């Protein structure tokens, strides 16, 4: 199969074409492996060119990913990947730019850049690998760690409450926000695809297991036996319903949302998920259903709304100026202020 982009034929690729020759050096059993696999499987499906695909990351275990993709890539500095990617995406809009980082990388040191990349709606795909811990520096708490957590830097328990990346992204006006987890490759692949297809900034939070420093952080919601009752699968246009027998659902309540028994409220009371809504308040309310991955937690696309994309708007402005004033000429630029002859 070949896909066509801009009317040109893109050669077919296989998973192996997207694997670089570098040895993958995550701890055995790390959730990062399955995320990498999902990406390498997705790329051939997207029918994109390797040379037009760029992965940019910050620092952390997650941030090593670009080395393993046979594309262009930059492993940059802690927290700054969204900024670097912004410059690249603006300069070269024809490239597909992916940003990779962990929860410490994106939410702590790089929180400011994440917010601004999202609110500008720059055309980049941000994958936030959330393991609720600092992996690379060997086990300090992160902004998403749960209150009371004992780590090397919080030996008597973490005082702060966890940060909710989806809420943050929606608050930052993100036009595409999704959540997935490393135990479900198909779902990850689907979320990554949706992020790719979205015009503008997209953020996908991936619950990722760090089996060395925070093993099982998500097992309360992702383990096979609890999954059906703990994962709320958001699907556009469908009622928000979950549970092994579909016994639970999400209903509106006091301007927000809450979980109810279908038996109590009836099917028709369930909220129908609309990811395209311009008003992000329902998506935000859904993101507040679970304070952390301990109670039933929504996964899927929270929001996929249309908003002007920054790079395109910039390009339009530049083109408009060029059309109006013509191509710049240095000799006239130097004479643009009053001049005199001697």
């Amino acid at each position, binding site marked *: 199969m070949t896909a066509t982009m801009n009317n040109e034929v893109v050669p077919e690729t296989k998973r192996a074409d997207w694997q*670089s020759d*570098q040895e993958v050096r995550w701890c055995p059993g790390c959730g990062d492996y399955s995320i990498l696999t999902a990406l390498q499987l997705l790329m051939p499906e997207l029918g994109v*060119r*390797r*040379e*037009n695909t*760029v*992965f*940019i990351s910050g*620092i952390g275990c997650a941030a090593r990913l*670009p*080395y393993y*993709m*046979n*594309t*262009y*890539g*930059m*492993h*940059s*500095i802690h927290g*700054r990947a969204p*900024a*670097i*990617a*912004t*410059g*690249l*995406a*603006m*300069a*070269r809009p*024809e*490239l597909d730019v992916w940003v990779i980082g962990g929860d410490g990388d994106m939410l702590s040191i790089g929180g*400011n*850049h994440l*917010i*601004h990349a999202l609110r500008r709606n720059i055309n980049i795909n941000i994958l936030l690998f959330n393991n609720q811990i600092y992996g690379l520096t060997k086990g300090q708490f992160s902004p998403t760690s749960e209150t009371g957590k004992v780590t090397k830097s919080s030996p008597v328990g973490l005082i702060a409450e966890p940060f909710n990346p989806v809420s943050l992204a929606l608050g930052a006006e993100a036009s595409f926000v999704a959540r997935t987890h490393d135990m479900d490759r198909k779902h990850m692949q689907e979320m990554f695809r949706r992020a790719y297809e979205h015009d503008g900034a997209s953020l996908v939070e991936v619950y990722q297991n760090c089996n060395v420093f925070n093993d099982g952080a998500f097992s309360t919601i992702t383990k096979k036996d609890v999954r059906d009752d703990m994962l709320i699968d958001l699907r556009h246009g469908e009622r928000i319903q979950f549970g092994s027998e579909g016994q639970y659902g999400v209903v509106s309540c006091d301007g927000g949302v809450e979980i109810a028994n279908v038996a109590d409220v009836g099917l028709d009371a369930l909220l129908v998920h609309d990811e395209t809504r311009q008003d992000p308040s329902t998506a935000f309310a859904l993101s507040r259903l679970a304070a952390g991955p301990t109670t039933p937690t929504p996964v899927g696309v929270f929001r996929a709304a249309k908003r002007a994309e920054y790079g395109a708007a*910039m390009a339009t*402005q*530049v083109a408009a*100026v*060029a059309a109006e*004033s*013509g*191509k*710049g000429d*240095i*000799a006239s*630029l*130097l*004479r643009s*202020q*009053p*001049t*005199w*002859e*001697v």
Partner: protein
Amino acid sequence: MIQKTFSNEAGNGGNNVTETATEPTVPAVDRVIIRFAGDSGDGMQLTGDRFTSASAMHGNDLATFPDYPAEIRAPAGTLAGVSAFQVQISDHDIMTPGDAPDVMVAMNPAALKSDLHRLAPGGTVIINRDTFEERNLTKAGYDYNPLEEGDDLKGCRVISVPMTSLTKEACKELGVKPRDADRSKNFFALGLVSWMYSRPVEPTMDWIDAKFGGRDLIVAANKAAFSAGHIYGETAELGDQRVIVKAAPLESGTYTNVNGNTSLSWGLVAAGQLANLPIFLGTYPITPATDILHELAKHKSFGVTTFQAEDEIAGIGAALGASFGGHLGITSTSGPGVALKSETMGLALSLELPLVIVSIQRGGPSTGLPTKTEAADLLMAMYGRHGESPIPIVAPRTPSDCFNAAIEACRIALTHRTPVMLLSDGYLANGSEPWRLPDVDDLEPIEVTYTTEFNHKNADGEDEYWPYLRDEKLVRSMAIPGTPDLMHRIGGIEKEDGSGNISYDPTNHAKMVEIRAERIRRIEVPDVEVVGDVDADVLILGWGSTWGAITSALGRLRGEGHKIAHAHLTHLNPFPANLGEVLKGRTHVLIPEMNLGQLSLMIRAEFLVDAQSISKVSGQPFTAGELETTILETMNGEAKQ
């Protein structure tokens, strides 16, 4: 360029008054220094700027020094709110805005109080008398009226004019509101001073039309105020104050009056054209660098993208991303911003990607003196990153030279694939001078090549791409994203030379550290030129904006018979190859700097010469006069020992 003559840039007393051929009644002086001082709300920068423009049109050589407060709006009438603009105009080539003003305009008591001490002995003060009432006097800290009592104005000539009331009077019949009339009083001052120095009137009138076009009452008020000032000169019989500074014998060509930030921005735009690359400026506003963003934002038609980021780290990050994508990435800032950018500069140098970091230095540390100049970031530019992380440094010497320095910084960045620091300062940024425009066709193109083919064979004889294969100057191969087959990953972790693969091998790291140092050493920079008494025992070594004051001071000292040589550094890393030779065998190497001796430290360390520092860290540039004195003292002091 301009023929150098050092006639009488010194003190006030030395004005050569001669009869002019053109206007026999108006005596001519060879130069004059005027300082406009008033409250921040009085429009003194504008007044100075207009006077400068008219003088430039008249053909004078000139140099300006805007000196404004840090507060956008300090309480009106207070010392903190005094805003001043000094300009020296001359009939010969000058390098500085001059030491002591011959004429000072004081729009209120605070301006008089804060700036009178600068006035040359016997100088003239033009005072807006209307503002010398109790409230303003108290705000300025006077418990008397210096126009009536005290010794403040002793020894100077005072022209006390009720500018506010005369302006209101002139505007009355036009139907201008008293408040708007009051705002025009700076044009009264401009009119008066323009009359005194026979400045052409049309440029100012045209400017008023262009600036306030459509707002007829404002146009009328400003023109009326200007004329009232002009007429006041005639009628108040200030004829004996009237002098002319004739046009300077400048080399023929087209001139424009330019400040450092504008010419620096134009240099960046030109570099983009010379390299045939789009420019990407990633930046965050900070005084005194912000005008570069303002200027570049206007030039989209040159393929310039300006990105006002969320902070300086994002600014440089975005610029680096654009560089990675094959654009000319530039970031602009001042000292505190450089501090924030240093980690990304380290990344850029590890990635060996082109990037230009423009820093317009201001007084530090921390917020320091945002609106005042200093040149104390040299060591930060040189060493302010972690690890062994050399970065080339280029520093302009005059406002117009910022154009050349900007092109040079871009040339080094693009052809050597390295971040480059372009180190200007607040004094150059805002100061202006007439600039003979270069012939654009004479500017050298910047050759940039990106790799598009495999450059290596692996053990099995298969083609591959190695991003860290180098040429004879140790410049690495660069393939930009979008280039088929040459996909590769780069990052800040140490890389194996050649392949670019991650490597923690100790010998490889040692090798890479040495390569990164050597590739900066191999950048070709022009030899430093020695001027003055080339073989003198005394060498003055300067860098950056001190060039003007040093050149003027040396002109005076050499005029007095002292033998002195002068060398000026445009490249501070690497140093010019002949610098060691130039320093050798001198009895004195004196280094004037607006810091506590940073270049001295570098010179001492590198060449083991007993360089002596001449420091100034008051937020003000050196004047030629104080350099003259200090150089003499230092030379004599040494001799006595």
